Every structure is written in structure tokens, then in C-alpha cells.
């Protein structure tokens, strides 16, 4: 049993030796680390290091051991019960004695490792983007065309995508009171149009990305992109010139679109998006002239003979969900 006891003591000693080494290696990080690590070792007080780290000094070890270097600098943890400590090291080998100016070390420029190319926060390549949005018309004072929309994009590369989008307008068109006020005051009718739905095939390019710090604390990533495409938009005039006889059907028009978007990433698969998009098409408006009966009931006389190039500029605010949710970087950090 004597051997057992000795063996346990040796095992304990061997176990503790590396601990001192680890704490010692942390001491090179900075003054506070040195102070607290030494304090822990000497006193065995676990919570002493927290204060030391917070205050950036060796106070935590005060009363439990402070030694002095040959240069006169106090080195925390010098007097260790049992006669072991930095002071003894200094006595045995003065060249190995730590002789650091802690203030100078603390003020030294901290060289954080920086990578030449930082990893992009969220890779888009080979991922699908599902983007539901709510659209608001920006350039039609007479009839606003809000509505829900959906886009599905696929990223061929990290910056290039192709996709489809569409919007449903029919129940949401709003004929503004301003129209009736103008008709009443000036006896001038403005041809009005309401939309039904649209669909487009698009190509986009992410031309800019960056990050913002909110109150110098929370950092979020964003990117900006341009997008354009072709599609169809279905609409019809709202009869205001001869509402008794005219009843228009929805008709499709070939349209082109171009826009710019901003995407703010919440995490690596979810983002908030805002787009400014111009859907352009040649529109057919209601004829301001009313044909004489019985031709006034002929639908071919209801439309203006000319077509009008129309811009439907929309703000589209929505969310982006990237699928798959996770991805692997090709290279390590």
C-alpha cells in the first residue's frame, strides 16, 4: 500500500506539471494572462483569473504570491508555498528569468492573422433562391398595382443567376380618388388600366457586396444585383369614357424588364430583399372617342389605335430562402 500511495502522489505531480506548463504558455499572450494564470497555479483559486483578465493586471494574485524579477519588476506568482516559483527560477538561471515590461507588451501592436481573401459569408453557387415578395407600383398616380409575387432563381456561379418570376395583381388594383376628382373638375378623363398577372424569364448578376456594422456592433452582410428579362403581362383598360358599353377582357403583352436589387443576409440561407424593377411593355389604352351607335358596341372601336410604351416601375420587398440551406466552402479559411 505504501507503493500505492507514492504512486498516486507521483501521478498527481505528473498531472499537475503540464498544467503549469499550459498556464505558462498562456502567459506569453499578455500581461493579464500571465497574472491570472500564475495566480491560479499558485493559489488554486479558480475564480481569481476572471478578475485578473478583466482588470488586465496581476491583482488577482495579490496576497497569494508576488515575486520580483532581477530588474525590480514584480512578477505575480513569485512566492509559491513550497518554495517553487519564478524567483527560484531566477536564482537558478538568471538568463531564463522572465524580464518583460508588461506595459510595453500590453501596448504592443497585436498582429491578428489576416487572410488574403476572406470567405464570402454565404455562397450562392449551385443553390436555388425562393423569393416571395410584395410589389408596390411607384409611378402610377392613377391606379396602383400592388400584389404578391414569387421568384425562383438558380445560381450558375456565385454571381450569375437565371430564374423565373411572376406577380398576381387582379384583386389588388386601386383606382385612386384623384381620378374622379380630375374628371369632375376638368372634365378630362385619363385612360386607366388594371393588371391581372405577369410572368418573366430573367438573368441576373451580383455586382456588389459588402457589410454594414449596426451601431458598431452587429455586422450584417449584403449584396446588390442587377436583373433583367422578358415575359408577358396581362392587363385591360378600366372603362371610364363609355362604361355603359365597354367591357374589356384581359390581354397579354410582351414585356421586358430591368431592375436593381439589394439583399441583406440574416443568416446563410435567409435574406431580406428589396428590388426596384421596371416592367416595360406596349400598352393598349381605352379609346377617348366613342363611336356612333351601333358601332359603339363593337369591341374593335373601344381601343385607341395607337399603342403606348408603358413603364410599370415597382418596388418589391420580400424574403429570400436559399436551398440547400447549407453549403461547403471549397477551400479552408
Amino acid at each position, binding site marked *: 500500500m505504501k507503493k500505492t500511495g507514492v504512486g498516486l502522489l507521483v501521478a498527481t505531480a505528473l498531472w499537475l506539471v503540464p498544467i503549469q506548463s499550459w498556464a505558462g504558455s498562456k502567459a506569453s499572450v499578455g500581461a493579464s494572462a500571465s497574472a491570472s*494564470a500564475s495566480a491560479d497555479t499558485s493559489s488554486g483559486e479558480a475564480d481569481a483569473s476572471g478578475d485578473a*483578465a478583466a482588470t488586465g493586471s496581476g491583482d488577482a494574485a495579490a496576497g497569494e504570491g508576488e515575486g520580483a524579477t532581477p530588474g525590480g519588476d514584480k512578477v505575480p506568482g513569485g512566492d509559491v508555498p513550497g518554495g517553487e516559483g519564478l524567483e527560484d527560477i531566477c536564482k537558478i538561471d538568471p538568463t531564463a528569468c522572465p524580464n518583460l515590461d508588461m506595459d510595453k507588451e500590453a501596448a504592443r501592436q497585436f498582429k491578428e492573422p489576416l487572410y488574403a481573401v476572406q470567405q464570402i459569408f454565404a455562397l450562392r453557387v449551385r443553390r436555388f433562391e425562393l423569393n416571395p415578395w410584395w410589389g408596390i407600383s411607384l409611378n402610377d398616380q392613377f391606379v396602383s398595382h400592388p400584389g404578391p409575387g414569387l421568384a425562383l432563381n438558380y445560381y450558375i456561379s456565385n454571381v450569375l443567376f437565371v430564374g423565373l418570376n411572376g406577380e398576381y395583381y387582379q384583386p389588388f388594383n386601386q383606382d385612386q380618388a384623384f381620378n374622379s376628382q380630375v374628371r369632375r373638375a*376638368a372634365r378630362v378623363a385619363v385612360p386607366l388600366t388594371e393588371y391581372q398577372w405577369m410572368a418573366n424569364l430573367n438573368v441576373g448578376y451580383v455586382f456588389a457586396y459588402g457589410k454594414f456594422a449596426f451601431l458598431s456592433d452587429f455586422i450584417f452582410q449584403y449584396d446588390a444585383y442587377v436583373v433583367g428579362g422578358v415575359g408577358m403581362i396581362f392587363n385591360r383598360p378600366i372603362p371610364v369614357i363609355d362604361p355603359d358599353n365597354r367591357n374589356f377582357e384581359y390581354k397579354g403583352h410582351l414585356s421586358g424588364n430591368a431592375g436593381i436589387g439589394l439583399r441583406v443576409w440574416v443568416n446563410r440561407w435567409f435574406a431580406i430583399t428589396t428590388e426596384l424593377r421596371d416592367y416595360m411593355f406596349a400598352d393598349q389604352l381605352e379609346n377617348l372617342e366613342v363611336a356612333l351607335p351601333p358601332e359603339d358596341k363593337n369591341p374593335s372601336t373601344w381601343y385607341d389605335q395607337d399603342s403606348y410604351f408603358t413603364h410599370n416601375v415597382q418596388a418589391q420587398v420580400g424574403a429570400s430562402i436559399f436551398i440547400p440551406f447549407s453549403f461547403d466552402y471549397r477551400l479552408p479559411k
Partner: protein
Amino acid sequence: MREGPGMKTKTRNLTTRLLAAALAVAAALTVTSHADAQEILLTGPLAGAPAVRKLRLHRQGRFEITPSATFTLLDEYQRTILLGAKLGYNFTDWLQFGVWGGYGAIHMSTYLTDQIQDQNALRRQRDITDTERRLTALNLGPDFNDQLGSMDWIVSPQLSITPFRGKLALFQSIYIDTDLYIFGGVGIIGLTERADCTECIPANNGTFPMASRTAIAPTFGPALSFYINNWAALNLEWRFLPFSWNTGGFDTAGGGKDGEFPDNKISDADRRFHFQQLLSVGFVINLPTKTKLSE
């Protein structure tokens, strides 16, 4: 009493237990001190350090002069371009007090105005007793453009708060510092509108008299600044200015049970609420021209 072997064994067992207990305590303390050593690494030299070192303080303690052109948006009858400037002082890197002002230098009619005037011109060729002409006599003078409400000038003392700052990479090659800020203040707007009247059809069908007034409204919006260098930046401000005014000079309301029908008068009841929107493009000059760096 003679010590027997059994007693010796008990003493040894006790010693072993004490040693084991000491070992366990030592192990527990060892684990704790190990964790503390890691904690020290995390909170050592970076404890209390700022999130960003050597941060360019584009605004703190600097004056800002921003010549700007401001465009009104979603106008019914007349678009206005205001030429002006913003002057401001940044108390901190996130708080600025300033004054923005603009003079309505350019007014352009919209397509609707042109259409109304085309019809008006045709109508005025008819006899004065013609129904169409008679029904619009109170609302349309010889030239519709002459009776349009216009924004002549705007002055707005305002506070700007910059909660977002960051950088933007363009085409993965051009990197610029960017701020996103919000502003809010009081808008003082110099307007010209059709003058109030009760007998509103001028003799000999002359033009309607106009009057100036000053409206006060809240103003607010988001804005972006893109820094070109240490002292210059491009600036975009989207300004909201909600207030009521009579943009067309029409008798729109004031009569009927709910006051929503014409009353053959021009009065403040004819002013319609507009959520006026303006877009400013500016060139920011920061003084002094040298940028300070944070620690």
C-alpha cells in the same frame, strides 16, 4: 493493546482513501484551472478592445457642406427640381445636426397637365355659354399651367443618425466606405397656390390670382453616403414630406354632407393630402479634409 494486522490494514485503507480524495480534488482543481487558462486567452489582450481598430471616422467633429439637386417624385401636374445644399455638423460619428434647403429652380409639367391644357384650349374656343366651358369655368383658367401649385423653396432643420456603416465592393475590385443613415426634422415649405376665393370666376375670363403661403410638415427618410476619399462623398437622400396642398388649383371639396363635394369656392378644404417624396443627389464635402482614425 497490541496492534493487530487488521487494524493496520484499516489505517492503510484510510490513507489510501485520503490520497484518492486529494487526487480527486486536485483533478477537479486541475480541470478548473485549465478552463481558466483558456478563458484568459480569450479575454486577455483583446479584453475591452474596440470591435474595429483604426476606423476611419468620416464624420466625428467635422462640418459637412453638400450641394444637392432634389427631384420631386410621383407628381400629378408638375415636377420640381430644387437646387440647394445641406450644412451640418457631426457631434459624433453617428449624430449630426444640420439644415437642408432648396430653391425650386425648375418646374416641368406632366403629361396629364398637357392633356388637360389641350382640352382646355379647345374648349375655350367655344362660346362662353357652351356647357363644357361653363362647367369648367371655375376650375380652369386660360392656361392650366398658370394655376398649378408649386413648391418654391424648402428649408429643413434636421437630425441625422448613422446607425449603419460599412463598405461596398463593386465588381470585386472597387471598395468604398458606405454609410446608411436616417434623418428627421421639420420641413418649412414655401408654396404658391391658387388664392382662396368665393367669387372665383374672374372678369373677362382672366387668369386666376395666386397666393403664397408657408406650410410646416414633418420630414424624414433614409439616405446613403458613398465615400470617394477622405473628404468627399456622393450622397443620396430619399425624403418624405407629408402635407396638404392644392396642386391643381381645383375646387375639389368643401360642399355636401361630408364636405367631399365642390362648393364653388377655393379654400383650404380643397387642399388634398400628399405624401410628397423627393430624391436628393448631393456631393458631400467634409471639413476639415483630414479624416481621424479611431484607436
